[in-house]
């Protein structure tokens, strides 16, 4: 039994016909070809599939699209403004915060939600916010550095 869903993704309304029990992760990747959102454990353990719904990090492997109708969904594809990368993306690339890059989209979006709420977070606040996102390559140091650098640059841009 398929349901017609209207999802607002990265500022665009998208109509999609999908089985009502499909997860947001599956609909984003398989029905909308938004493969920037990565498929991880599908158990809510690793944070790899994180997207933002109304600005808050949500594990798309545990979310149903039907609950997300009328809400603002944001994926990594929506982070850059035109050709300009988000300061977090820029900082992550410069500092080597993405090694294999598989956990990167989820971490970037979680960090974006943090900086929206807390523009100048402490290192501990960053760690706390990212506690649900696993990375197996970097040892996290450069990820934390990346968030700090982006926060600094965003603050500079505001003042």
């Amino acid at each position: 039994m398929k349901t017609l869903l209207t999802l607002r993704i990265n500022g665009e309304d998208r109509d999609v016909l999908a089985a009502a029990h499909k997860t947001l992760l599956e609909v984003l990747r398989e029905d909308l070809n938004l493969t920037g959102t990565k498929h991880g454990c599908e158990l809510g353990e690793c944070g790899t599939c994180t997207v933002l719904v109304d600005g808050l990090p949500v594990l798309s492997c545990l979310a149903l699209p039907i609950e997300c109708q009328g809400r603002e969904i944001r994926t990594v594809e929506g982070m850059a403004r035109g050709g300009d990368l988000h300061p977090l993306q820029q900082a992550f690339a410069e500092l080597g915060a993405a090694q294999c890059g598989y956990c990167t989209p989820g971490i970037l979006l979680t960090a974006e939600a943090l900086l929206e709420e807390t523009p100048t977070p402490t290192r501990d606040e960053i760690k706390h916010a990212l506690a649900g996102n696993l990375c197996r390559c970097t040892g996290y140091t450069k990820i934390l550095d990346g968030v700090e650098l982006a926060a600094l640059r965003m603050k500079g841009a505001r003042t």
Partner: protein
Amino acid sequence: MRKDRFSIVGQSRPKIDAWAKVAGETKFADDLLMSRMAHGKLLRSPHPHALIKRIDTTRARALPGVYAVITGRDLPRVKFGILPVSQDEEALCVEKVRMVGDAVAAVAAVDEETAERAAELIEVEYEPLRPLMSIEDSLAHPEVRIHEYGDRPNVHKAVALQFGDVEAAFASSDLVREDVFFFEGNTHLPMEQHSAVAQWGADGKLTLWSSTQTPHYVHRLLAKILDVPQAHIRVVAAPVGGGFGGKLDPFAHEIAACKLAQLSGRPVKITLTREEVFYVHRGRHPVLMWIKTGFRKDGAITGMHFRSWLDGGAYGSYGVASTFYTGALQTVTYQIPVYKFEGARVFTNKPPCGPKRGHGTPQPRFAMECQIDKAAEQLGLDPADMRRRNLAEPFVKTANHLTVTTIGLGECIDRVVEASGWREKRRTLPPGKGIGIACSSYLTGAGTAIYWNDMPHSGVVVRADRSGLVAVLCGATDIGQGSDSILAYLVAEVLGIEPKDIRVHPADTDLTPVDLGSYSSRVTLMAGNAAIQAAERLRGKIFEAVARKLETAPERLVAEDRRVFVDGDPDRGVDFAQAVVLAESLFGVLAFPGSYAPPKRAGKYKGGGVGPSPCYSYSACVVEVDVDRETGEVKPSEVWIAHDVGRALNPLLVEGQVEGSVYMGLGEVLMEEQVFR
């Protein structure tokens, strides 16, 4: 590459693929979507050890949306394995399963859900056998056989090597210690699950896209497993979302995807679940170790006798090499004048172990470093001084015939001792705090290939386009460590252009020269040297053409800042793109190969091929910890680590590797555990 000034090498700079990765553009294998693509699913055994009496796929075949269902009987009846000496795996087991998770059948269907439902409809009748779940269990029950081959019942491989008279060394020692250690097994767990997409074209040719660290070995083995000429198979390595050694074998899902693609006439994708990744495993071997070492009063090691028992799991995989590795590098770190090693890898009904980061060497390292601490305590020596006292010597052959070239371990020790305040802190920290030191060494690329041959270990083709773009073709796989970037930096350095002017093509067995794979820390050294050779050959032709145009000698030219010009006279020169046009006009298409093969240094004994390397890297580490005196919980508060990596081609990437490995090590030591129920 002989240069006294570098413009790219040695600088911290972003990886060439960093932008795609932060933008979510990188297409991992699971991100590949093809028209008419079917989704595959494997049916796996719920039993650790059982005979397969019957498989009935009738109901699965009848399910609407199912395109193909296969069992092992649909595949050529040939066993395979990554090492020529251990051909003991089947993609889909036919007569017997040896672990929970062994695949017995596979389905391709319109979507993943239908494939999963169809897999559940396959009826398998098993006759359970007694499972053997530990080294002791397997050795105590030789009447139960996991495999019919091996050096003894349930012993996959038993090795014994002796280099000198250890008993005489012990007799003349001031202290002899015997200790037993056990290293818990663990798994790689890259964030990306293994995934493969296969397409069998109407022309009868097969293409496999896979998240693999070893496209070349997969290419070779697919030909054998599927009984298809290797020339008609193409393996393309997708960007790998983390490997750490977990994606080095040919896997059931890759093989099943190929066969299902052939039968269904559609591209077939199989992506493993996180649970399945634990079944395919190939992780760190649990190893039980006994060490007997002799010491002189001054701390010098007089000789060592090392025994290891490896819990191999259900299949061979890289296990023979892993076994030798538990005994190979002891002598490369510290000077051990006489050395004896006995190792045995035991089959158990658990997921197969294999190579994880450091392949078989962190376990003995742990045992040996602990024993040295105990000996230092007994001898009243500072553990840091005792290690420094025993450093392997540069440019010598060790007792087990390994050639050490340069060794920076002494400097590594000095640096971490100084930075950590070791001398002041040792013996003075309050109760509940502690400080420790350990050292290590590892290969910079295995000195021998997995199959014996006289061909290069790595090949690169560099092609210059009239636009000034340079294409680098190499069969190496970037698994996040940045090896594609390293190739770009080296070629850019030689040609005096920017990494952005270079496109590094992913491993594709149709197009790229063979590189053996991303394992044993080999790619930067081996593919890097091949890339330098190829780029220098290209530069030679470019200089020849430009020199003719400028009426000067090629030796007087340099390539820098995207220009080729007379050294010391930058105005007398041409742009790089113009230089390419001049050279192509004179010589035709500009495409040049480079090859690298390590020096042939394998010891002339059985197992002598495991351990040699063009050079070794070294590290020393001091860790300060807090210990909860009630619960015993250990928390590292600070880590100081120094690595001798030679010249850091990009310090940012080196730091990333070091930091990542420290965290993976901390996870292994403090957090990870394997529980079998």
